């Protein structure tokens, strides 16, 4: 259902404790992302972008506040329940691709499906589909180190898409790529968004904010500005 909120954050706070120092990574963050949104999170280094994405992806738990993912309050979920939700609802794309070096392209893509309990035959079929979608099916038996950075990131996108997640979280997806490959990956994300995929992306590159519907600006762990695309000066 279009316009239904997939993500709802209220008063999210994240404090890191090291020795006797408390670091406020996020303070009082309110955020709603609706189905089909493409949200870009911008801000200087250390402002809390990655922490926000980690909390959105259930990789990190907030110190305080309420977070509902697709209507489910995730505060009380256990470790394995979080893993289940992550597998079923969220797709990740990382800056450094994070493909597992010892697995082939196809096996990397199949991995989240295997965790979801999909039978092997179906997994193969689904992996083939998504690899075709990112034009990487011809390299399915290769190992990650045999691919270029752009190709590795496209495989990572395919892996993120394999479980048909409710939301795709991209952490600096073009950070380790040259501009040509970066553009290609962004075109892919744009295409996916065009097909209705919800995306939340962290990027340093202001050029790519243009692809998003909304740009969320963070500074010192606080949301300082949220603007519609049209109002953002690129």
């Amino acid at each position: 259902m279009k316009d239904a909120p997939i993500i709802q954050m209220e008063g999210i706070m994240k404090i890191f404790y090291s020795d006797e120092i408390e670091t406020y990574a996020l303070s009082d963050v309110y955020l709603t992302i609706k189905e089909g949104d493409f949200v870009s999170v911008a801000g200087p280094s250390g402002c809390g972008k990655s922490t926000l994405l980690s909390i959105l992806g259930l990789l990190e738990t907030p110190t305080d506040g309420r977070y509902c993912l697709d209507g489910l309050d995730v505060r009380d979920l256990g470790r394995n329940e979080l893993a289940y939700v992550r597998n079923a609802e969220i797709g990740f794309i990382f800056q450094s691709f994070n493909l597992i070096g010892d697995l082939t392209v196809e096996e990397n893509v199949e991995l989240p499906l295997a965790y979801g309990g999909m039978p092997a035959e179906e997994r193969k079929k689904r992996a083939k589909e998504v690899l075709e979608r990112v034009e990487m099916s011809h390299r399915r038996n290769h190992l990650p180190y045999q691919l270029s950075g752009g190709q590795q990131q496209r495989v990572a996108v395919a892996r993120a898409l394999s479980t048909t997640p409710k939301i795709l979280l991209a952490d600096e997806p073009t950070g380790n790529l040259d501009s040509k490959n970066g553009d290609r990956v962004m075109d892919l994300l744009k295409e996916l968004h065009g097909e209705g995929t919800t995306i939340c992306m962290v990027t340093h590159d202001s050029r790519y904010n243009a692809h998003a519907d909304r740009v969320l600006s963070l500074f010192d762990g606080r949301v300082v500005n949220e603007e519609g695309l049209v109002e953002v000066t690129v």
Partner: protein
Amino acid sequence: MYSKTGYDKVMSFFTNIRFAFRLLAKNPGSTIMAIVVMATGTGVAITMFAFVNGVLWSSPDFAKKGTIYNIDWVERDKYKNSQRVSPLDYEIFESESEQIDEMTAYMGWRAPVYNPSSDAFAKEYNYKRVSVNFFEFLGEKMHLGRSFLPEDVSREKDDTVVISHALWREQYGSNEEAVGSTLMVGGLPHKVVGVARPGFRFPDDNNLWKASDWPEPRMSTSPSGTGRRHWVKVYMLARLKEGVTPRQAEAELATIAEGIANEYPESNDNLLRMNVEPFTEWYIRDEVENRAYGLFLCSFLVLAVACANTFNLIMSRTASRTSELSIRSALGANRAHIVGQVVLDGLVLTSIGALGGVLIAGWSLKFIWSFFKSGYSDAYWWHMNLDAKVMGFVVGLVFVSSVVSSLVPGLRAARSATAENLKDDARTSSGLFVGSLSRLILGFQISASSVLAFVSILMLAVWYKSNTRPWPIEPTEILSTGFNLAGLGEDEHDPILVEAPRAMKERLEAYPGVDSVSFTIKAVCGIYGGTFLPFEMEGEDYENSRQKPKARVMGIDLGYEDVFDAKLLAGRMFNSLDTKETEAVCIVSKRFVDYYWPGEDPIGKRIRFNDIHWIRDGFLTVVGVMPKLTRAPLGKESSDLSNIGDIKIYTPLAQGTHAELGMQLRSKGDPRRWIPTIRRELAKIGPQYTLITNTVTVMEDEYRFLAKENLTLTMFGLFGAASLVLGAVGLYSIMSFDTGRRFREFGIRMALGADSKNVVYAVIRNGIATLAIGSSFGLVLGHTLTVLMQESLEINVMPLGFVYPVVVVLLITSMGVAMGVPAWKASRTPPSQALRVN
């Protein structure tokens, strides 16, 4: 390029050493682990090397150089094989052999020694009768006085003795007037003619030497007239002529021996061959040698496991130093520098480990030595010192261990591409080092641990079974001692030899608390031992002595049944009516009846011994059947007679006795409290008589008897346990390192939806294959080795099937913990943290 001076090189070396120490301090956890592992491995190896060096490889030092050989007369009938020969035969060997340069002979036991010029009680010492040329043969000079002269064996003169330096200090307070004084040895006066040099105790741990030309066989009145079957038999020692090999000497001696056997078939027809062996090798019995070398081998296996551990630890440390080593390389370090840096790291680690090993060895050697010396008298030249040879071994061990542990990691580090490493380290953790080689080494560790676990569990099981066998008697309530009444009465047939002990028994039993007292001859603790003798059954014809049945024979006296609570299975016990004047009688054991007269009534049957001076001549009538009084054997009941101590014949002391008496006293509570009383009562027979040194309870005596056995078994057990722990530590460290290296991967997996179970599986999947292959290989090897050991060590105690499940459970538990802990830790790490790991 600059050329380095020696000073620069030394300074550079010290800089590298300092850096190596800094690295050790940087990773205290893995450093301590590596040091403990190496200390354990080297400690075990040093201990066993010191043992082998001090016992198997040491020899007595004599003024006259050259190898001294022991000569054995090996008999066909191994039960009868005493390795000694009649002095009459010794004289023939000495006069006829052309291959032998010189010979000497000795025989001995322990004897009570009483110094009439002192107030002290008599004390028992090791005592040898030796040929007149004994000291000359060894090239020994006396500390005081002289060695033996031919007239010392003259019947017209007093008996003479040479005493050890230790006995001189103890009995004479190092007074030089000891030479020429009279010492009561075995109840008879002996003139001290010399004091041996300090430390000399040859041929074992001896204190008294008496010159002898072995008159007894010549004076014997045996029916054969030759005296060759007289119980006096000697050990022969020889030096071979230059260029003569032991095999050549054996061949010549065998020819002479055959001649003797042909001439005196009645006594010597049992000859199989002559055996000429270096004395020190002969002295260490084969089984002791086999066990010691078996332990030595196992200790190296433990060391190899420790080295494998250190190898993997250094491999891991080197992997985490990829960036640092690459920077060194980028700054101009050549291959030798890189390898040297890594090897130095290993050298520092193993050196500190070896220091710990020396400490462990020092403690464990003390422990082993106390066990070792609690047995019977051992060679005086044995030691367990960390001498120069052992310390040389330690240095070699450190060098080899460090090279073995760190050379390969160093070479691999030097070979890897610098640019790639720098890039690799910048982005992800290094995967350069933990590959097939580490897995292979880990597989070896697991195999070696399995082998040692197998052997050690079996040994511990044997040890447990050996110590928990039920007793048919009360071993803690019975005190076992003995004394030698030599010199009491006219001869061995004098009735006083029976009357005096019986009077002593009456006096002792009058004390409230003493339950009963009894005397035995030829028995150990009253129940074990016995002289293995051939006998004849009435109505049977025997062509020669080899066809005769054999049994262990011991003499017992009144009260035996009370001391050992022996309820006869048939017939009657000896009583006061069994005397020299009445019918000669004997009692046989149940095992004897089962073996020789199955299904028959033994009572009334008659048996006979030939020419045994402490057994009455003529037929003895069986009057009773004795139950089994000893513990079950450790192995299965064997049909081999030599393994059966329970085929026994008991004869009454009143019908034939001996000056050397065993005595058993039973009382409620600790019977050792009666030792001073017994000593006082014995002194009433004569002040020159004393209790044997080995005055202990039956239980203690068995512990002493089994001390070396228990020591071997315990050491095998400890080695196995050490190896198992080291194996688990090795697996743990490699799994920890592997898990650490894959932390980011686990983060990715968790981000993709992997739950705790998936992560644990991902961690242990890599280890399981290695564990399965390594342990299977180890189990097969362990099984084979154990079967071989059972045969060579004559341990035949239980089916091996029992060991398999225990080993498998132990392996699974220890290795499971080693793998499970890092896996569990990985699964508990928050994924965002894992993803941040570089």
